């Protein structure tokens, strides 16, 4: 049973297109995240949702829009794709966290996006 799953695993598309990446977790977690990993393996958070509410929104272009239909799903839609959007995008989930507590984040396998 896959805890955090993403589709598709690979995505190759042309500049200017619009694409979506889907994420689902079956762990019953309240919080979900999107991370971007660039070609140098640097990993940075983009968004975080808790119970369908946006709680973290890093400096990300408006072309990126997360959508959470329910707390088990967090999708990422990207408009007008650019070459610089090529990266691996990871979804993750955790129980609600904050303050002095930390709950492990479980990561999906990643979606490798290539923009031509």
């Amino acid at each position, binding site marked *: 049973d896959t805890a955090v799953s993403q589709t598709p695993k690979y995505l190759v598309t042309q500049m200017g297109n619009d694409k979506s990446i889907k994420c689902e977790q079956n762990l019953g977690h309240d919080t979900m995240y999107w991370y971007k990993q660039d070609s140098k393996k640097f990993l940075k958070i983009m968004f975080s949702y808790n119970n369908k509410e946006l709680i973290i929104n890093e400096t990300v272009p408006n072309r990126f829009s997360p959508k959470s239909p329910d707390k088990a799903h967090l999708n990422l839609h990207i408009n007008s794709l650019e070459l610089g959007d090529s990266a691996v995008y990871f979804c993750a989930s955790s129980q609600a966290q*904050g*303050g002095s507590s930390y709950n492990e984040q479980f990561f999906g396998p990643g979606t490798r996006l290539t923009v031509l």
Partner: protein
Amino acid sequence: AQSVTQLDSHVSVSEGTPVLLRCNYSSSYSPSLFWYVQHPNKGLQLLLKYTSAATLVKGINGFEAEFKKSETSFHLTKPSAHMSDAAEYFCVVRGPYSGGYNKLIFGAGTRLAVHP
């Protein structure tokens, strides 16, 4: 501000020899620190975490890390490398509590190669 610096981008060891992956941190308060591992084409998996309890932390797969406040270090070690340990390793610090949540701040990663 919280940050981590992984001192080596690549480490190469022979199977059966010790592993040392170095990480220094910067934090304005008592940090929570983690090591994650990413195997090729896989998501990230938590190896171990330090959250102000014992300074020597044991993780999965025989890895451990020691929190040294005087040296602001959290190096990852393993007595004997196995071929399956070849992967990318990330040192992570929990970011400041803001808006009810903490972000994870990732280091740049260390690629561990294990040779027969």
